């Protein structure tokens, strides 16, 4: 394999030399492109697919040869050089289409559909340039944003928007936090420790979607991708295979986003305004005050409190005279105190226009989304200027400049037990009140402080806490193009990313439980972090196309990219400021202040070659090769790649081919099959997310008292290199019944070799592991996408579509022992021969009804000091897998798989005159979830309020139930990580329902008025018991499917108006 790659690279270099020679020969060869009228006459009709009537004024062209325009009745006649010619048919309001000439005997009948109707005639933006999907041999999907972006729910960012629109693109919204973004991957995952995110390319430049800070607001992550304004996007191409042109960055596929194209000569203004409502989520049923009091009484009795001790508790006494009666006899629904139904709004203005010399697209936007709590909000200002300048006949410059500023109000969430309002709202005692109450029962306007159980007041966190994330990004590039002649051009992109994020928080002392620091008790706390990313990107390439005779077409692109990155994070944490009015880090105690941060720098270069070959417009072949150098690679890599000087370079490539079967003689006249294309590709790309400095031998600071020394940090691995992912894809594109049914089906297999693992070493090395390229895994699956036009008359239309995708993962080799990892209370195992990342815990089998029953089985649990505690009646019946009668870590087994069996979507669009109704259902089948929220609500071991499920808890000998007894501290581990907490996470969701009406207007200066009514997350069908079955708390695969109690997704409804001027 290596040798082949090296050879191809060498051939690529040779080609460059040949190209050099070819330049001089240019002019003579290109003379064939001169209009040549001596060809074969072809006749045909062009009809509107909806009405069946002929259309006039449609352009029919044969590239570099001839052109024609259709007559009144749709008929046309054109000369073609030979019978393998493709006619390109285009007309205002119709999707541009290519049609192979079949024969001169019969007249062609060509049906035209509205723009963006068929995937097969969309223009894909590929790393090698624009290409019509018709002839694209790779597995790519194009999503046109024009159709739905104007009614897009305010709450959805690009990642969410793409969910369900492309088979094979898996998008999981991280949480309901506005601007949270989505966990994206294409066709499952390819790596354990390196990233599984697809590469993002926006306007030709890499868009960095990493979070470079430690995230001082707990369990909140920033997502730069979510900052992109959906309405600025024209289309997105999702490239699922053959992404080798991006070398060691292409392993996870590529998402190529194109923003506003300045392509209008007349001034065109779009103005939109939206307003809507975020509906508060449905509450989880927790115990009411009386039920909780009973539960608590039983619980504290189980820790050995005597009846008199319990009776002395202030929350038990019912004497109004004791002064505390009113404090402990309230009925508070804490979830009501947190969640709110709120509003959202969005304004957006875009102006496009210009002349022959300069065209521009300018947009500004404002968005304010309040989330579903009284504190959460996201406010965004965005602006973008895309311009296209023709400086001279040959030189043009495109500028794509954007600036976005976000201000988000956030709070800790997830496992922040003392500071997450969501967790507290579920678990705080319902008999306590929000405000302080005195002995006479008078309610103070002041909030209640930390309660007798040491639990914070969630309202104090909302009202007196601060959590702000302000971030901005400048993302811009200049694209220079010099056209030597129509076949030969030089391009260069020079781009800059500047991202800054400033996060501050303050947690008050009053109303919030203290924390224990290494040297003091922390009461109030504050923090501030600044993250910065500075990245310069260049991409320079030569394009050269060549036609040999009338049958052979070549396209070449040879280019060079570079990216240098510089990231920085600085944070400070302060504690114990004098009062809660001093909220900055500087006001905290000098002794307790903590400062930290990190710096990163990495550079990447990439030389690439793309060669497209087309024979007879039927057989397409594409060859890609890329050579990468990266500061992250080790300097003595042993295999795969080559050394040049002291640095080491990867050599990767792919080859893909397509065969348009429907252009062959035997199918040319088929009535049923309009288009049939077979595709196959094999490619090798890489993943360079191996750590900036992991290959180097590093020293870190080690103190001896207050003096700093240096010690070894790692075992550097000079052999460390990229992960290699080879992708095999076979696909078929099929269009049937006069293009009314369009189907794409792909099967694929991705093999990861040289996968990064933390290989455990012997104890004598003094280190636990060394990072090596020694694992491998495989992901295989299929994608199906089906779109059909069921009904289309002039007034009425119905389109339906279906996307299905499935992947199956298997770790094929892993050095050493299985990887056991923990995240958010869940334990995962990754094992050779199995899927990566499976839930790993105890199996349970109900609850012992009686102690006799438990004794009969004779199982026990080891305590911390090694003593064994036997199970009793009311305890969970764990399965003793190793048969030693002791329930411990050795009895764990695989209890669930967070990866879905099948994901997909179903969409339907109904048009009636000017009214249109569209619905998108998204579903996920067969994925398991760890319900960490329910774990906290059913573990029955502390003062936390519980869900109503615990009303069925075991209380008396002989009771048949599936909820165990309440025991203080849970010494028998009834609540330990087991299949009790694993739930089926399958769901079906009506993700978007959109009704739009195009108001007829006679006014001269208003071109269009459209109104939209959109609902998002309107209905969710699931058996999952948490708030919502869709969440992702981490970007690592070790942690997917663990519900930590993040802000749930919610329903939004909005009304919008679009004015076209």
């Amino acid at each position, binding site marked *: 394999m290596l040798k082949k790659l090296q050879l191809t690279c060498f051939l690529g270099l040779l080609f460059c030399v040949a190209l050099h020679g070819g330049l001089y020969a240019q002019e003579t060869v290109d003379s064939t492109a001169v209009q040549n009228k001596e060809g074969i006459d072809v006749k045909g009709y062009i009809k509107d697919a909806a009405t069946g009537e002929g259309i006039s004024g449609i352009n029919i062209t044969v590239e570099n040869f001839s052109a024609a325009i259709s007559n009144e009745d749709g008929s046309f006649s054109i000369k073609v050089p030979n019978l393998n010619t493709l006619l390109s048919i285009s007309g205002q309001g119709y999707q541009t289409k290519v049609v192979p000439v079949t024969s001169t005997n019969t007249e062609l009948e060509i049906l035209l559909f509205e723009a963006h109707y068929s995937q097969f005639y969309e223009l894909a933006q590929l790393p090698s340039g624009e290409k019509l999907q018709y002839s694209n041999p790779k597995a790519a999907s194009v999503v046109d944003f024009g159709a739905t972006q104007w009614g897009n729910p305010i709450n959805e960012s690009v990642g969410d928007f793409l969910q369900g629109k492309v088979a094979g693109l898996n998008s999981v919204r991280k949480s309901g936090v506005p601007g949270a973004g989505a966990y994206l991957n294409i066709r499952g995952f390819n790596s354990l420790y390196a990233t599984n995110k697809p590469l993002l390319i926006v306007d030709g430049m890499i868009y960095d979607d990493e979070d470079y800070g430690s995230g001082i607001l707990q369990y909140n992550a920033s997502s730069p991708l979510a900052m992109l304004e959906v309405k600025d996007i024209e289309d997105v191409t999702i490239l699922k295979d053959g992404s080798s042109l991006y070398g060691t960055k292409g392993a996870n596929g590529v998402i190529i986003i194109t923003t506003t194209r300045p392509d209008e000569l007349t001034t065109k203004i779009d103005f939109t305004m939206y307003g809507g409502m975020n509906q508060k989520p449905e509450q989880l049923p927790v115990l009411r005050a009386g039920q909780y009091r009973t539960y608590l009484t039983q619980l504290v009795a189980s820790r050995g409190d005597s009846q008199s001790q319990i009776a002395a508790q202030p929350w038990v006494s019912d004497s109004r005279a004791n002064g505390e009666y009113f404090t402990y006899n309230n009925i508070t629904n804490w979830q009501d105190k947190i969640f709110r139904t709120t509003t959202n709004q969005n304004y957006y203005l875009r102006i496009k226009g210009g002349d022959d010399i300069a065209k521009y697209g300018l947009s500004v936007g404002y968005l304010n989304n309040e989330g579903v709590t009284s504190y959460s909000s996201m406010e965004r200002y965005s602006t973008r200027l895309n311009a296209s300048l023709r400086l001279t006949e040959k030189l043009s410059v495109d500028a794509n400049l954007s600036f976005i500023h976000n201000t988000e109000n956030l709070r800790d969430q997830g496992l922040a037990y003392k500071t997450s309002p969501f967790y507290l709202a579920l678990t705080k005692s319902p008999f306590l009140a929000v405000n302080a109450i005195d002995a006479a029962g008078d309610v103070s306007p002041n909030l209640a402080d930390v309660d007798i159980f040491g639990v914070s007041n969630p309202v104090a966190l909302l009202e007196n806490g601060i959590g702000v994330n302000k971030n901005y990004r400048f993302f811009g590039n200049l694209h220079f193009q010099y056209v030597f002649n129509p076949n030969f051009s030089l391009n260069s992109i020079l781009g800059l990313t500047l991202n800054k994020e400033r996060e501050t928080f303050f947690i008050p002392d009053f109303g919030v439980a203290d924390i224990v620091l290494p040297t003091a008790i922390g009461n109030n706390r504050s923090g501030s972090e600044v993250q910065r990313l500075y990245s310069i990107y260049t991409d320079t390439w030569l394009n050269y196309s060549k036609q040999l005779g009338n049958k052979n077409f070549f396209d070449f692109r040879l280019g060079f990219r570079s990216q240098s990155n510089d990231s920085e994070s600085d944070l400070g944490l302060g504690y114990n400021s004098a009062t809660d009015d001093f909220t900055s880090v500087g006001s905290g105690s000098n002794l307790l202040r903590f400062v930290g941060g990190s710096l990163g720098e990495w550079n990447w270069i990439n030389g690439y070659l793309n060669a497209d070959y087309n024979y007879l417009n039927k057989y397409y072949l594409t060859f890609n090769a890329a050579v990468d150098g990266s500061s992250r690679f080790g300097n003595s890599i042993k295999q795969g790649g080559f050394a040049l000087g002291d640095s080491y370079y990867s050599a990767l490539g792919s080859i893909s081919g397509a065969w348009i079967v429907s252009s062959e003689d035997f199918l040319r006249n088929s009535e049923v099959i309009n288009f049939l294309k077979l595709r196959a590709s094999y490619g090798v790309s890489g993943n360079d997310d191996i750590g900036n400095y992991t290959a180097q031998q*590093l020293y870190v600071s*080690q103190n001896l008292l*207050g003096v700093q020394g240096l010690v070894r940090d790692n075992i550097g691995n000079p052999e460390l290199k990229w992960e290699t992912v080879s992708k095999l894809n076979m696909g078929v594109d099929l269009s049937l019944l006069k293009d009314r049914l369009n189907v794409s089906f792909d099967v694929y297999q991705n093999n990861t070799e040289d996968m990064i693992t933390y290989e455990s070493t012997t104890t004598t090395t003094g280190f636990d592991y060394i990072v090596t390229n020694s694992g491998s895994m495989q992901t295989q699956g299929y994608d199906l996408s089906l779109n059909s036009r069921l009904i289309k008359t002039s007034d009425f239309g119905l389109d339906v579509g279906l996307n299905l995708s499935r992947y199956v993962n298997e770790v094929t080799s892993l050095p050493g022992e299985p990887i056991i990892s923990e995240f958010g209370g869940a334990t995962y195992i990754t094992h050779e021969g199995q899927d990566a990342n499976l839930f790993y815990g105890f199996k349970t089998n109900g609850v012992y009804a009686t102690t006799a029953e438990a004794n009969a089985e004779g199982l026990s649990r080891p305590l911390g000091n090694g003593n064994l505690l036997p199970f009793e009646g009311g305890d969970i019946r764990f399965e003793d897998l190793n048969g030693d009668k002791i329930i411990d870590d050795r009895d764990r087994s695989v209890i669930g798989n967070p990866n879905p069996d099948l994901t997909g979507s179903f969409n339907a669009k109904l048009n009636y005159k000017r009214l249109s109704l569209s619905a998108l259902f998204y579903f996920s089948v067969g994925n398991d979830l760890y319900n960490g929220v329910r774990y906290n609500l059913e573990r029955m071991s502390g003062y936390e309020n519980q869900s109503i499920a615990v009303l069925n808890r075991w209380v008396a000998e002989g009771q048949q139930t599936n909820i165990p007894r309440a025991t203080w501290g849970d010494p028998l581990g009834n609540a330990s990580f087991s299949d009790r907490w694993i739930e089926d996470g399958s769901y079906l969701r009506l993700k978007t329902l959109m009704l739009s009406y195009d108001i007829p207007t006679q006014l001269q200066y208003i071109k269009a008025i459209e109104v939209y009514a959109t609902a998002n997350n309107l209905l969710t069908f699931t058996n999952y018991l948490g708030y919502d079955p869709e969440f992702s708390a981490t970007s690592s695969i070790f942690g997917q499917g663990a519900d930590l109690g993040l802000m749930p997704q919610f329903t939004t409804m909005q009304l919008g108006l679009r004015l076209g001027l």
Partner: protein
Amino acid sequence: MKTFILTNKKKLVLAGLALALSVSSCQEYLDVEPQDKLNSDQFYRDVFDADAAIIGTYGKFMQLAEKYVLLNELRADLMATTRNSDPEMIALSEHSVTADNRFANPKDFYEVIQNCNDNLKNFDIMLADKKFSQTEYNQRYADIGALRSWLYLQLGIHYGSVPYITEPIENLDDVKETAIYPRITFEELIDELVAFTEGLSYTSPYGADSSLVINVDGYNTAKFFINKECLLGDLHLWDNNYTQAAIHYKNVMETGTMSGNDSERFDTYRVKFAEVATNNDLAVGYLRFREQDRLALIDNNTQGWRSIFARDRDVLWNTEWIWSLPFDSNFAPKNPFINLFSNQGGDYLVKPSQRAIDLWEDQTQRNGFPYDARGKRFSYNVIGGDEVIMKYLYKFLDPVTQTPIDLFQTDGEWFLYRAAKLHLRYAEAANRDNQSRIADALLNFGIQSEYTVPGVTDKTDIEQTFEPFPYNFDARAGDFPRFRADWHRNGGIRGRAYVERAEVLGDSVISIENNLIEEAALELAYEGNRWGDLVRIAIRRNDPSFLADRIYEKLNAEGNAQAGSVRTKLMVRENWYLPFVWNEEE
């Protein structure tokens, strides 16, 4: 083609140049050095880097403190587990450690060893590249070299045969190589260690002008570093080279000899007698003229025997302590001993064994009290009904109320070497080197007391050993003529501890050796010496029962049903050693 080459020669040359230029500039572009860490090119460039390397290695070394104490004491007979101990500690105490037990994992030791290896290799390179002077090299190389030998000695004591790795791990091949490194026996290891450590060209502590001897956060760093002579003495003692051992120990004992300051000269490492008038000493003592009053015991953090463990690093402290590292609550790592020993603010994981308590109770003080105050008054106390090991807690617990002064105030020390240990070890070597009388003198009431002649006022020819180095002691203190010889203040270990002399029964060499080992238990309990002492003597005498009996007595006194079987097991030397775990996840 040829014409092409000729016509394009200039272009080709140009292209070649461009290619060469771009390759080298690419290389520069791709050569990114870490910003918040250092890589190997950015380190070991001057003497300050070398100092940072040493500081770092000692910083890592401090993380071994808890393990060192547990391995050396809980496995032996003076320390026992409590109701809170985890099963792995219980296994350690009962000698049933299996491979999955954390104490079977030598990684912590190798982590420091590998840092030492890295230091040593790079010091060599620095010297070769003339990045620091020969003297700077000698001092630093010897320090880290000695520390590594100390670590290997500990590994040998606990794991028997271990791989003796002296090269750092720098890449995957090194990792694979360490996995197949041969394990050498304890005897072979000792030989290697003696050879290596004797080869070090500098054996004194860092000079006072060294850039490593500074004051940091209220602590002088001079005693942070290993004493190479003590280590050499220990290594020779393990190797049964008694004279050599005595020479090295004696070198340390004479540390004050060249001093111009009298108190430094007479007091440094000489185990000074009690200051009965002022009680400003390190001895067990009572208020003057109230020697029969139990309550008059000098029991505070600044006077008497207790202050050895509680006092600041002052002049008196410096006369006793040779090697000790402080834990300060302002800095990591957190003092592990609070958690280990204290039943307030700690987990109380270990306690004194009944056998240790009995040992102290069996002594008689010179005032007739039927116990050794070093036991229940100083080494342990009964707090809230629990027997609590106190040596490590004096800076944590209030001297009067015995409750934590401040839960976050966790200052303390890791006790590694002090004069009493030095004297006992020297005596052990001397006793075996036909100098039993000196050994007995140092153990009991000191040289002067042993070599004096009652009633003689002219001390010219008495109160000294008249032996050649390393057995030369002059303890004369006379007024007519006046003598104040170097050793005149030596009061003996038991003298200082205010207990009656240890009787010599039967074979004097064996009996004195027994006395010395028992005295080490009384004096140095919980300072991390006991298991080594038992192993060393048991090997020397080729008598496993010396070790097995003591463990049996400990377990038996606790009523442990395993006592008998543990004894049987320990009668085989192989069973003294912990399993050596190569791969953590076995």
